[in-house]
């Protein structure tokens, strides 16, 4: 039996709030972990172990004055952060975090909406999210913002290609674009991280670049561009850009967990969402670890690496996978 619409609404409300909570505490986790890796404590004054720090940050951002350049294009300047944040949040709607449950006569699926082309939908929303960064940078009418927006544009377009081709191997093996079906296929064989290890490597590297995370954070390289496309933003508008970045990181980690690490499947005990969450947390920690470890790339290195290394490797991986699937 299908789900009635009100279950979808409840699920969506719960998931969005969980996601926002996860974003808030991912910022704290990042500051704590990087602090520890650099032999500091990180935030520890607000509440026990600094646990109230994200709430203090939120109150600060909301109460701050919304300062905007006099020559900014208002409508675009204001809507750009919202576009980025909204597309990032929407992408999580199709990520399956559980097998689905049967409660009181209703079948409840393990994601907000199950569409047969969910993987394509995530990429489509991701490609729309780029506009928030570009339009925001352009509408600020500031040279640092514009340069940051240009870099975002070039970097995201370059790495989007490698990212999309790196998952082709998984799609060919599973024979589906539906994330639920990809996870179900993995429950019958091995997790795709083993046969698709090259795809995973390319996906992860391109994913870091897609989310503008260090060492690929050239769009907001503070030593060169102040803060890139978000230079002229303050208060919660800046907060929305920052939220978009973290939510994108969470969505990308979820996608990696779903495509390569069996989604909600665990080594034992059918705990569903808990396994999914643990794997997701591990991925987020790796993102943070990389930020604390690696220095930023130079711009020409970034472009060379994307087009001359990642793209050919991803293409060869897809071709070899296709040949093997047909031959065997």
């Amino acid at each position, binding site marked *: 039996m299908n789900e009635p619409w009100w279950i979808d609404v409840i699920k969506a409300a719960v998931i969005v709030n969980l996601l926002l909570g996860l974003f808030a505490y991912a910022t704290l986790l990042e500051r704590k972990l990087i602090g520890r890796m650099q032999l500091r404590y990180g935030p520890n004054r607000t509440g026990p172990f600094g646990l109230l720090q994200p709430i203090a940050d939120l109150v600060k951002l909301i109460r701050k004055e919304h300062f905007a350049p006099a020559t900014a294009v208002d409508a675009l300047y204001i809507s750009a952060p919202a576009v980025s944040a909204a597309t990032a949040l929407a992408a999580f709607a199709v990520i399956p975090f559980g097998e689905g449950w049967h409660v009181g006569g209703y079948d409840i699926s393990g994601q907000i909406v199950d569409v047969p082309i969910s993987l394509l939908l995530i990429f489509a929303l991701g490609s729309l999210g780029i506009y928030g960064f570009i*339009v925001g940078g352009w509408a600020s009418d500031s040279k640092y913002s514009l340069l940051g927006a240009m870099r975002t544009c070039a970097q995201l377009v370059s790495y989007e290609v490698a990212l999309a081709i790196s998952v082709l191997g998984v799609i060919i093996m599973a024979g589906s674009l539906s994330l639920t079906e990809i996870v179900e296929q993995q429950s019958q064989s091995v997790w795709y991280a083993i046969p698709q290890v090259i795809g995973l490597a390319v996906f992860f590297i391109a994913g870091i670049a897609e989310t503008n995370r260090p060492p690929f954070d050239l769009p907001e390289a503070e030593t060169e561009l102040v803060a890139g496309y978000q230079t002229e933003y303050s208060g919660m508008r800046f907060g929305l850009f920052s939220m978009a970045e973290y939510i994108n990181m969470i969505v990308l980690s979820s996608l990696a967990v779903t495509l390569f690490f069996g989604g909600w499947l665990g080594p034992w005990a059918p705990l569903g969402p808990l396994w999914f969450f643990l794997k997701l947390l591990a991925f987020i920690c790796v993102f943070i670890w990389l930020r604390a470890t690696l220095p930023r790339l130079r711009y020409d290195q970034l472009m060379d690496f994307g087009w001359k290394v990642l793209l050919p490797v991803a293409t060869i991986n897809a071709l070899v996978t296709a040949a093997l699937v047909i031959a065997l």
Partner: protein
Amino acid sequence: MGDFVVWVVWVVAAFACLGSGAAVISFTNPFFSALALIGNLGALAVLFLLLSAEFVAAAQVLVYAGAVMVMFLFVIAYLGRRADAPWKGGPSWPALGATAAAGALLVEIVVVVGQTASGRLSDEADISRAFGDPVGIGRLFLTDHLLAFEITSIVLLAAAVGGVVLGSDVKRREELEA
């Protein structure tokens, strides 16, 4: 209920399509024109969704509204001056006249199509669940439309090679002149 929602979505998407299309050619600031074109492609994708072509809709957003339009915006933002307002001055009398004439033509087309095809348009097409899914479209591309598909890829390849050749030629000439 379901029909009503479909109808409302269709009206909104269709008018968004027309409105953004008019905006593309009437904005004087090219950056806004490009944004309107993105809106146009997005509205088209919604119309594709109503025709149960989910794959085409997603591909439309991913390829055209996403990748291709990003390039447009990139170039416009690079060449563009500072951020101007979308319009400069008011519309001219010829522009207003042309808009009115186009509107009259649209009404005429709607009336004629409505009179001659109203009976046929209300028939619902019988489509299977697999209609418009990636497998079906992929099969069509590699069987019925193989020639067109391959020729398109050659045209695109020629365009890419041409771009590289033109670009490198300019660079060489600059080096010679320097």
